């Protein structure tokens, strides 16, 4: 884990001198230096207390007339004061210009954006065009309030999920380590126990059996160790499987949520498309049961032969259903109507590589013809 900032102990040179009160580390070994992000002039803690306790005052460094407040003073993170300042500026710019790579059309646009951001930071750091850059930044911030907010949220979420994952991993590693240690301990114990057992048996047995007992003990030991090994293997595989599923679980919730169209400052932002609402899932792919293409099944078809049956209890008692008969006959009659054999044949010959025989359709066509004749 990275250390907290407190852990970073300042170890200055012996002859470090506070530029304000000129007291040196030699005299005051606990001297700590503070800076203020207004002007980044370094001074020791006691100077800060002395000068700024009674409210805001001017910076004591000659030539610097900035007004400083005590609460803004903080410890220096980086040795190089320029880097310290740059990082502060960067922090400010980054919170505003926090577009994400997913929001850009192409990589080139993303890279251009990165360079533009770098350029702005560079300008602010080196004092080039500060006014214009600041204005741009302000304008952008006010225009893109919402996207900035969402990206910040995303960022925070990412960080926390990363943190969580990291913790989880550490915990797992710890468990594994412990398991390995326990395993070793168990093994040792087992070996000791079996040796003791062997010894006691040797002590109690007859001298003639000694060799046999010793051999047996050896065998038991071997067996145990091989059993343990296979057990270990099993556990390991299980652990590996677990680890695999764990790592998949925290999926990246990288749903892009850019709402406003790109402002004038950043180019190449993706056009925002709201995704179409998903339709309910249709398991049959649009097919409706009992709906036919060429006919509708009616309840009654006039037929001199079938009409008497309708009333005949002898037939109906056996469970004969006329409706069933109608539907079957009509299905047979219209089967294959949508198929055009000539077309299919020519198509097949054209792509003769595809050597599938259209057995079904060829057989069905004459059958359809004859049955339709029969029914009409």
């Amino acid at each position, binding site marked *: 884990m990275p250390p907290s900032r407190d852990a970073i102990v300042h170890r200055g040179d012996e002859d470090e001198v506070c530029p304000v009160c000129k007291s040196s580390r030699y005299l005051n070994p606990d001297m700590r230096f503070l800076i203020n992000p207004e002007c980044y002039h370094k001074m020791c803690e006691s100077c800060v207390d002395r000068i700024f306790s009674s409210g805001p005052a001017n910076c004591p460094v000659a030539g610097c007339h900035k007004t400083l407040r005590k609460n803004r003073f903080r410890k220096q993170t980086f040795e190089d004061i320029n880097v310290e300042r740059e990082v502060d500026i960067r922090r400010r710019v980054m919170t505003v210009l926090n577009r994400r790579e997913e929001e850009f059309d192409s990589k080139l646009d993303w890279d251009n954006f990165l360079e533009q951001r770098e350029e702005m930071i560079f300008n602010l750091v080196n004092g080039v065009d500060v006014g214009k850059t600041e204005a741009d930044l302000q304008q952008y911030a006010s225009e893109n309030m919402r996207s900035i907010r969402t990206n910040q949220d995303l960022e925070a979420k990412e960080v926390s999920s990363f943190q969580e994952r990291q913790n989880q991993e550490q915990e797992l590693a710890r468990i*594994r380590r412990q398991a390995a240690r326990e395993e070793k301990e168990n093994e040792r114990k087992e070996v000791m126990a079996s040796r003791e057992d062997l010894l006691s048996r040797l002590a109690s047995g007859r001298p003639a059996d000694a060799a046999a007992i010793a051999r047996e003990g050896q065998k038991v030991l071997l067996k145990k160790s091989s059993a343990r090994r296979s057990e270990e293997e099993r556990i390991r595989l299980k652990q590996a499987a677990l680890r695999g599923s764990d790592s998949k679980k925290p999926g990246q919730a990288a749903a892009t949520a850019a709402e406003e169209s790109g402002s004038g400052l950043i180019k190449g932002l993706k056009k925002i498309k709201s995704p179409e609402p998903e339709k309910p899932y249709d398991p049959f792919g649009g097919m409706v049961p009992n709906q036919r293409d060429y006919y509708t099944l009616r309840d009654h078809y006039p037929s001199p032969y079938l009409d008497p049956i309708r009333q005949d209890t002898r037939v109906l008692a056996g469970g004969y259903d006329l409706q069933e008969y109608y539907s079957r006959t009509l299905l047979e009659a219209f089967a294959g109507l949508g198929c055009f054999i000539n077309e299919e044949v020519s198509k097949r010959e054209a792509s003769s590589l595809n050597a599938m025989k259209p057995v079904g359709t060829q057989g069905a066509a004459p059958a359809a013809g004859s049955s339709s004749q029969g029914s009409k």
Partner: protein
Amino acid sequence: MKFFIDDLPVLFPYPRIYPEQYAYMCGLKKTLDSGGHCVLEMPSGTGKTVTLLSLIVAYQMHYPTHRKLIYCSRTMSEIEKALAELKELMKYRTQQLGYTEDFRALGLTSRKNLCLHPSVKREKSGTVVDARCRSLTAGFVKEKKERGEDVDLCVYHENLDLLQPTNLVPRGVFTLDGLLNYGEQHKQCPYFSARRMMPFCNVIIYSYHYLLDPKIAERVSKEFSRDSIVVFDEAHNIDNVCIESLSIDISEDSLRKATRGANNLERKIQEVKSSDADKLNNEYMKLVEGLREAEQAREEDQFISNPVLPDDLLKEAVPGNIRRAEHFVAFLKRFIEYLKTRMKVTHTISETPLSFLSHVKELTYIERKPLRFCAERLTSLVRTLELINIEDYQPLQEVATFATLVSTYDKGFLLILEPFESEAATVPNPILHFTCLDAAIAIKPVIERFSSVVITSGTLSPLEMYPKMLGFETAMQESYSMTLARRSFLPMIVTRGSDQAQISSSFQIRNDPGVVRNYGNILLEFSRITPDGIVVFFPSYLYMESIISMWQGMGILDSIWNYKLILVETPDAQESSLALETYRTACCNGRGAILLCVARGKVSEGIDFDHHYGRAVLCIGVPFQYTESRILKARLEFLRENCRIRENDFLSFDAMRHAAQCLGRVLRGKDDYGVMVLADRRFQKKRNQLPKWISQALLESETNLSTDMAVATAKNFLRTMAQPFKAKDQEGISTWSLADLERHRQKQTQEEGRVRQEGHVNGNAANGARNGAGDEFDDGIDEDLMMLDAQ
């Protein structure tokens, strides 16, 4: 001699071959055919290099694909040795074949070693040589010259441009010295000749870093084709090399220098802006377009390259907020200032790259993406500004490299911030360690890119550890043992002193006077019976110092001085080399000497004690690493979680490979002999982790000795070894002539036929046994008990 492996004709430059060399070649050939990686262990002193080279050269020449060989070794002397071997081999091949093959082999090392420029080559430091060389050879300097400005150029480098670019050096094998001589004769720069000729070579020999360190590898080794054969020789430490190549240490001093570098850069930008604004604008335009490829300056001009692995190399455009030079410098300054604030902590901190990044962002609004491009952007800027005095920017480059690495890799790295050098120190000297924990990261591109990677050394056991740690699959892993006509080395494990008290260097008892005295007695006894040199290895400098002072108090040193001179290795390289020199003189002239050194020091790694320079090696204590080190702890945890290597397994593996490395120092060939003593109770349980060739020679009866027993055994052994031994005795057993080889081949085919008839092979039996033997528990105790019972 010439023989065939399957259908491949192999020319071996000696009349006899060792059986294990033949087996090694067979194994290697199989791997090359199947196209996979392999891990091969072969004992030291059995001619590994020449075996490897003769097989691979035969392979290259026989098959039409002509796969390139990239041979990586560790030190300059090893590279030079390998080149010399290759030269011999090629000479032999020419003799045998009757014509010169179209073959070119070069070695590459740093500019410092290959420079010919009269004033530059006199510089001591490598970075200075690099920088001065650059100032004389860079492309823009030449442009200036052409524009008529008065600048110095290196004649040797200029002459290269006059030559045909694909034929800077003639065919053949050049050793480094040979290349220097050739360069001097033809007035051309050896370094750049080698660099530029690399694509046209059959064999390239250079150091690990040219392939493993991604910062260098991308520049030097990116053009090799996929089917190249990569060999890592002496690779027992390859995991540490991988890790070191990606780790960075940053101290307060280097940050201060980096700030200075950034300020210089800023000033330079202002200058260029006022004089030659177009240059910066051009660069800016290129970066906007993201045309990084378009900016292909001559590759030698680069001074920093991206430490990100090549396949990870970002083909994206540089982020907008570091596109402008002045923005980038401000960015760097901010990052350096941030690091400075981190340096001010008073307690040790370890954190992951991710949490580091989030903290950076919180404090300085530096995001991850621009950090990743840091190294890249700095290179581009330096090139644009045409900076010459590069060495001033070294610390800045380090910071940039760190930034790139920390933002690229989430896993396998850890930041450790140690405010104090040691536990007891009161003056803070903060160091930020950015450590790589995963050896696989650096070697991954090599493994993935090349179809055959061969990892070989004398001590790689246990072999399965390396593929696990480095994250690759092997087509073959094999350990070859040493065939010996007589038992020419005697490994022993001494667990007790003469008083039957157990000896060990474990923390609880290492400073007990009894243990120290027993160790002293072992040394004394061995100095009494061993002719010539004895090498003693301790687990650490600290322990060595304390034990020596205690020996002094006990009067042990005085009695040792009756027999031998005592010399000590120190962390100082010059002192150590002086001690080593004296040691060699003493071994050559008098009764011999004792060299006390440290198992992880310089002596244990690169220096051979062949023949009379080392007749006995004593390993006092198991050379475990310092386990309280934060970095080691982090690495152990990483290995446990990711490679399933348990802490203790890794620690003991690491200790044993170093112990084996130490033992291997004394046996450098088949006619050599020596005693190897492992003096610690704990070695008894760990003996099956020793390389096969040592553990095979270790008799069961010699694994649990007391000092007096060990001395008696060693005395006997040395007496046997002193008997005359003719080369003829070895023939047919440990050295084969062609006829022996043929006989072996026949037997093998017969055997194979028989096995095939039987149906199936019970292969891997040996492997299974090895795996089973890895258990940690104590089996010695049962034997003891049984012995008690029998009485």
